[in-house]
């Protein structure tokens, strides 16, 4: 184990120490109320999961600016670094949690396969005191987080696919989100006439 905290961890801690805080319960309970409302409006568990991801996406495309303005994380050289920054700086800064980033190499994947990583969240504030009743046991309750990551990355030129793989509400030991890079969108400056 390293004697020093790795640099991203420290960046995350510094960023979190500077932001204004609110009681986690306000956040957790508000999220619960949002999920309940979505379920009420759609009466469909699958649709609610999709809607949560969409809401997350809408948040992601906005919250990225604050991250860029306040986190001082610099530019990432590769997707692996992107995963580290999201896990150690972004999640820490906004949710106060320490998140692990595990890089994934699919067995038998072709050499030019697009990179991916998994985010592993142990003390997820979204799920505090929550239990999924029988009729929504398949709800992707934490799908908002998947959308946030997708929206934020899209705003900085990375089109990704995210998926909620595991959740404590499903009986798993932690929340796990997969993030796979699909396309890099280069902001090339083109003539307006094009």
């Amino acid at each position, binding site marked *: 184990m390293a004697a020093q905290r790795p640099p991203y961890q420290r960046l995350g801690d510094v960023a979190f120490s500077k932001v204004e805080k609110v009681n986690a319960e306000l956040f957790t309970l508000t999220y619960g109320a949002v999920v309940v409302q979505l379920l009420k409006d759609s009466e469909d568990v699958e649709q609610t999961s999709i809607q949560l991801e969409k809401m997350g996406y809408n948040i992601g495309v*906005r919250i990225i600016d604050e991250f860029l303005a306040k986190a001082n994380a610099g530019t990432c050289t590769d997707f692996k670094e992107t995963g580290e920054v999201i896990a150690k700086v972004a999640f820490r800064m906004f949710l106060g949690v320490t998140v692990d980033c595990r890089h994934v190499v699919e067995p038998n994947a072709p050499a030019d396969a697009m990179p991916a990583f998994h985010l592993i969240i142990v003390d997820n504030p979204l799920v505090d005191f929550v239990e999924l009743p029988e009729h929504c046991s398949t709800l992707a309750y934490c799908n908002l987080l998947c959308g946030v990551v997708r929206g934020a990355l899209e705003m900085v030129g990375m089109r990704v696919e995210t998926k909620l793989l595991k959740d404590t509400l499903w009986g798993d030991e932690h929340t796990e989100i997969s993030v796979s890079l699909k396309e890099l969108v280069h902001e090339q400056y083109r003539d307006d006439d094009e």
Partner: protein
Amino acid sequence: MSGGRLLSLYINNRSGGLIYQRNLSPAAAKLRDNDQLTVASMLSSLALILQELAPTSGSRPMSSLEANGFVLCSYDVPTGLKLVMLAEPGTQGLELLLKAIHALYADYALKNPFYELDMPIKCDKFDERLTRLLHDFTR
């Protein structure tokens, strides 16, 4: 905090469209609304040209241009947002100021449910906080 005077602020969205403009000094050129839009998109193009001409490779988010009557400092956010400040020659601290304005945008425009992304910024609190920030800067 600085010498010199601020002249005007432009904020462009991802497509180079003007979403915020404020003249900060009576000395700022008084442009009609249409002209402001034209100037704003010209600033976007100008910044690109600056980057093309730059001797070193790789884009920096900040660039400055000095001309006879003014200095122009431009901050390009990786999301495509662009903030441009025109000031009198010799004005210091513009980079930090633009970063602070970006942070205000992140708070009082982006956290406002009534603000639509890429649209003109019409948020009272953004205006108020910006006024305060600029006032503190020029003191």
